[in-house]
């Protein structure tokens, strides 16, 4: 191995270390209680627990302030239309609509204290931290972009919050010890199925010092999945089978209740 190559490798490692985190003194480890959420016929929502710990070396141990954790859970992305009603000839009609291109269908931002107390506005924007700083691009005249102060965006966020699909909680992460934390992710009943990512960021003194990610999947299983597959892939057969079911039900009832 030539001297030159060693030098290049060393430089590369140094660059990596410098780029990865301002101070690579801490390592973040996190895991979920469950990586597969099964939707069965009695599914009414579920709660997942995220566990994690901050592993620090000598340099980290010297840190004076406490740690902050922000975990962002993002569900599968699906395009949405937000529509606004207006009164036309006395009745309320959808008159205006915006298409949002692939916004998260589920977004939960969990932290141990308010985001503005954890890091600066500048950092939040740069790291896309929190619902307000999550980009939700819209279709504008065949183009895709962000619209600032958009009432449609505000309505989308509000409606998603009402359905429990978007949330930002400043007290969802609890530190059990100064380095061990847990957070619960609540998935409502009407949660979309698909792949979810969990991004965990560690802050100290307002700076991002480590991050890690995890993922889980929400799947329909058994009978539920069978019905969905059948309805989507074999629409006609599914329709005929349902018709047969209707006939049978009607016929059985007329036999069972025959009184003459």
């Amino acid at each position: 191995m030539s001297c030159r190559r060693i030098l290049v490798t060393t430089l590369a490692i140094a660059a990596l270390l410098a780029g990865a985190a301002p101070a690579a003194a801490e390592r973040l480890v996190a895991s979920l209680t469950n990586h597969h959420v099964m939707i069965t016929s009695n599914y009414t929502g579920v709660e997942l627990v995220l566990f994690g710990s901050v592993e620090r070396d000598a340099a980290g141990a010297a840190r004076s302030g406490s740690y902050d954790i922000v975990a962002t859970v993002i569900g599968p992305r699906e395009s949405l239309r937000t529509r606004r009603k207006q009164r036309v000839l006395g009745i309320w009609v959808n008159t205006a609509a915006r298409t949002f291109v692939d916004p998260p269908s589920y977004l939960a931002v969990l932290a141990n204290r308010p985001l503005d107390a954890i890091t600066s506005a500048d950092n939040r924007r740069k790291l896309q931290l929190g619902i307000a700083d999550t980009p939700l691009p819209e279709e504008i005249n065949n183009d895709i972009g962000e619209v600032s102060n958009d009432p449609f965006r505000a309505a989308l966020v509000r409606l998603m919050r009402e359905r429990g699909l978007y949330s930002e909680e400043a007290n969802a992460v609890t530190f059990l010890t100064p380095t061990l934390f847990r957070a619960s992710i609540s998935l409502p009943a009407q949660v979309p199925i698909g792949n979810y990512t969990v991004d965990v960021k560690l802050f100290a003194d307002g700076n991002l010092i480590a991050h890690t990610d995890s993922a889980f999947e929400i799947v329909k299983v058994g009978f539920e999945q069978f019905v969905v597959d059948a309805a989507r892939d074999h629409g006609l057969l599914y329709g005929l089978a349902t018709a047969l079911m209707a006939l049978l039900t009607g016929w059985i009832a007329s036999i069972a209740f025959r009184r003459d």
Partner: protein
Amino acid sequence: MQIYLPIADIPVNVFLVLAMGLAVGFISGMFGVGGGFLMTPLLIFIGVQPAVAVASVTTHVAASSFSGAIAYWRRRAIDVTLALTLLAGGIVGSAGGVALFTWLRALDQLDLMIGLSYVTLLSVVGVLMVGESARAIIRRRQGKPVELRRPGSHAWFHGLPLKLRFKRSKVYVSAIPVLAIGFIIGFLGAVMGVGGGFLLVPMLIYLMRVPTATVIGTSMVLTFLTMVSAMVLHAATNHLVDAVLALILMVGGVIGAQFGAHAGQRIRGEWLRLLLGLLVLAVGMRFAFQLVLRPDDLYSIRLIGGAP
């Protein structure tokens, strides 16, 4: 007990849905209507997307009208020729309705269209029925004969060609208005998720002068056949029929319908029509208020690409 609906993508209480099926089934058996005009709004009210509600209710109406039709068949109160002629128009109408449904959904105007059709139809039909049955009740009170059958009063469409003899109903009319009525019923059924019995019964009685004795049974047969075709078309094109929801609804529906049919036989025809008219009118008013009053939230969201 909660159960997760695979197509509607929401959990619902089984007993609540079963009770809704029973209640609507009772009414449908009593009046000889499918009950879709009550069931669809109820489902929307408990949180099912309007599109899934319309598509799934067709199944429920098919089952309850089938069990009703069997009961009427045993009493020989069905005019098969009339039902089949209506059906020919009905199938074409269903296909047109499903196409319009798909198109309106893409334009964000499906909910409005469902609302508007409910208001218009239910108000008009409701007012007509209440008016007519009230007059009949007053006539009976005054001791006059109730059934005012005027053999000489022929509307223009009675003179159309292609005359058919509908033996069991004892009428001899052109097939063209019968086909047209079938088309309208099939079309509305697919767009509104209603069997159209509440429209068909008065149309057959007042326009075609079919005697009440065969109207209800025949209407049940037609309702059943158009609903099955609308449901299969919805399943094949929009993939929105929730079989689990449909099953719960229809189990409640068919049981309710049996009790309703027995209750209906103990009430006089004109009172039955008055009650049905009032019910139809009430549902129409409910939709009218919803359209006219300022909604709680001016904004709404819809997934693009439809339900999974």
